């Protein structure tokens, strides 16, 4: 076990190193951080050259990378080129907001997906199953920007126009210490994310349940005279939900990255917006900082999931 964990950790470090190189190159080649100043006649050629030197952009790319890596290894993700704030501080400011949005979404998604998936599996090929299946495909196919904007237009803009109680667009200044305000502002972004994610998860639960319901031990349980509820929830669901737990576990690190589109539409001050906002300005210390946090989380959670699997399923051995 320990030799496996050591080996995976060493592999993970190499993986992270490669990820940082790729992210660095992609970010640097995506645009010049000083391009926004290019057409500004107030900045002379000397001003631009001085700024480039101060930001270290005049140095060869490998030197820029190793300088950044050297600091990152010491836990210093550097400073934003433009806001001059430490990147770790900027991430710490946004991370709680993203965690609240994404974990709420995950919990709601899993809850709804379980209900819909089980219902769909138990009533296979019935009208209920067909309706759930159709809505799943529709939900899965709708681009998130469309559902997010659509929900806002209906439940915020149109509801107000129709004189009905309406939900906030998220763009107002609201008190984050007021739980009622918080929940009101969470409803639309969470709904937009849930529509897309539930579709995929519910299909997963449905197929998993169908597989389990056809197994011998379920038939045996029924033959023993157990009620269908007990068979379903105590015997079938326990095994059917196992892969779902793994799926959720693997999704957790990605939640740290936030949801760029949803956070943008609803002005949610999270990691996704931080990434997008600074990526547009080619402020690569911020972009790399966010990417490093997310990729480290992915790598770490993958190892943890692998290890946990041995506890969940004794048939699996790590070697």
């Amino acid at each position: 076990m320990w030799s496996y964990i050591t080996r995976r950790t060493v592999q993970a470090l190499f993986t992270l190193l490669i990820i940082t190189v790729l992210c660095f190159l992609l970010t640097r080649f995506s645009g010049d951080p000083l391009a926004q100043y290019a057409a500004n006649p107030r900045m002379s050629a000397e001003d631009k050259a001085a700024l480039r030197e101060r930001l270290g952009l005049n140095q060869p790319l490998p030197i820029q990378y190793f300088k950044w890596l050297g600091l990152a290894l010491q836990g210093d993700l550097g400073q934003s080129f433009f806001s001059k704030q430490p990147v770790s501080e900027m991430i710490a400011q946004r991370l709680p907001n993203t965690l609240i949005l994404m974990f709420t979404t995950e919990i709601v998604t899993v809850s709804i997906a379980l209900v819909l998936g089980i219902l769909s599996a138990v009533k296979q090929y019935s009208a209920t199953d067909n309706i759930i299946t159709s809505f799943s495909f529709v939900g899965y196919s709708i681009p998130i920007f469309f559902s997010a904007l659509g929900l806002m237009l209906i439940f915020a803009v149109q509801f107000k126009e129709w004189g009905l109680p309406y939900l906030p667009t998220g763009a107002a200044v609201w008190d984050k210490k007021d739980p009622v305000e918080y929940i009101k502002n969470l409803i639309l972004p969470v709904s937009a994310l849930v529509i897309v994610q539930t579709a995929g998860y519910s299909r997963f639960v449905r197929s998993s349940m169908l597989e389990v319901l056809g197994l011998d031990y379920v038939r045996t349980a029924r033959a023993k005279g157990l009620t269908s509820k007990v068979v379903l929830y105590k015997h079938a669901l326990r095994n059917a939900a196992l892969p779902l737990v793994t799926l959720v576990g693997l999704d957790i690190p990605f939640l740290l990255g936030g949801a760029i589109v949803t956070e943008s539409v609803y002005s949610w001050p999270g990691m996704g917006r931080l990434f997008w906002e600074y990526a547009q300005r080619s402020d690569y210390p911020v972009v790399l900082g966010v990417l490093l946090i997310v990729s480290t989380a992915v790598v770490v959670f993958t190892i943890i999931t692998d290890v946990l699997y041995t506890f969940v399923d004794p048939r699996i051995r790590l070697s």
Partner: protein
Amino acid sequence: MKHKLFALLSLFVLASMILSACGGTATEAPATEAPATEAPTAVATEAPAACAPAGTEPIAFPDGGKSVTGAFDQEPDSIVPYFTQMSFAVWVTQLTLVGLAEWDDQSNFVPELAAEIPTTENGGVSADGLTITWKLKDCLFWSDGTPLTSADVKFTWEAIVDPGNAVATKTGYDKIASVETPDDLTVVLNFAELYPPWQTLFTQGPNNSGAILPVHILGGQTALESNDFIHQPTVGTGPFVITEWVPGDFMTLLPNPNFFAGRAILDRVQIRFVADSAAALAALQTGDVDWYPNYSEGDIATISALEPDVKLTVVAGSDFEHYFFNLGRVDGVDGRGKADNEGFCPFKDINVRKAITLGINRQAIVDTLLSGFTAVPVSQWPNTAWTNTNLTVEGYDPDAAAALLDTAGYTLGADGVRVGDCNGVSTKLSFNFETTTAPIRIDAATAVQADLAKIGVEFTPIHTPAGTFFGQYVDGGPLTTGNYDMGGYTTGFYPDPYTDNFQCESVPNAEKPDGTNWYHNCDPFLSDLIDSSLGTVDTAARKAIMDEAQKYIAENYYVIPMYARGDVFGSTPRFIFGPMGPQSNINWNAELWDVQE
């Protein structure tokens, strides 16, 4: 295991909520109650009696006070203008840290902290133009009650030119040899050489941003770029003071009790950081925000359809979109202005340049894409006092354009594209046009492509992200390397007409990668003519030079002024703001903002 995982998830959410609640991300400055004797909605015109500050803290927001919320789709980086070139940051600067003077809605240069504008007549501008004397208003105070004096102006200059401070630009300030402060109200700027655009220093205009910095807070410090005050000044000279700023979320501004023109009418201004104009538009419709300042011309029709629930305001700006030809010559002209890449050969013929200019229906672009709100500019400096009013726009004339191309020797080929001889080489009038991915640029380029196809010119638009389009020389940016045929972007008045975009010495090449002559056009006459405008501070003499330069550029069809850009604002009907002009946005007199319920 599953239960444990869900417990863990719940723990995460709980921890996040606690973190968020404890936050600590906002930095709040203390605020005091408004003095009971002060009329909350009146704008005083008198300075505080006997030179005493009206307060030492921003005026607290009273119950039921007047408040507006703006939406910005970019969060300002540094509010002190010398450390940023970001428009959104400069807009907040206008609300919080003012300069010696500014341009008003009628494009007049009017005093702010200064008592008057220096002129030759009032002795503010010396006969040789090398000494500018500014007089400050009496009884000026910072928002914390500290007197604002000439020492603050002198410190501001010292901070800008101090090599220990990483300012974004020193342009102009580095021409000042010394600053004298004979008394608390007098500042004497001694220039080492003539600097005719002196009005752009320590002042706030359409594209320049100055402000006076507090010596009592920043004096004796260096590396100011990392100073908290630079990022978030909690003491100011503008109508409002920043009292709270939650990164990525919002900022709150409360009235400055010591603002030189009196207390602002509004009791609070909040600025919410949103992702884009679509989010801002929905928020305007629900009244969640009161104004959004950054719509593009392409949004005019959308906002217009929402009136009167959303109010549309479009003001023709002094910026304009221009198309231009790459006129690079690898050998330069008389050894000056050598480019690394040779421009598209047919563009060296004035007839071809003129034909392309006449072959584009610019008025149709203004009428359709800009809903007729702006106009086709006549020259380089539209909507300003520097415009050469004797020039007229040459209208769309495809027949004349075709005739000119015939004269130049380019005849229609079998594929409908003209071919001719250029320096002994058979050349097709087929070339690329490079610009950014902004929607209005895509629409305009598509219209131009169709127009030029009618006269046998194959114009192929290439849209690249701004970061690549304006990329630096070493990264192969098309503009800097001259690796393009035609190009287009927005340029303008900043707010002095001097430009080094036409100088032979500014043509970028491997030795001068930061050169700003992206037309790669070395015309020694034009280059020297524009440079001669730096030889005098006499405005009339400079106007004559600039008139001639505009005429010369127009007659040689070096650039095609396409359309004046519009400043497009969306606001709620309750938000009342003052008039805007080509050189001023809504922030220039924010102390007069009001709400009407």
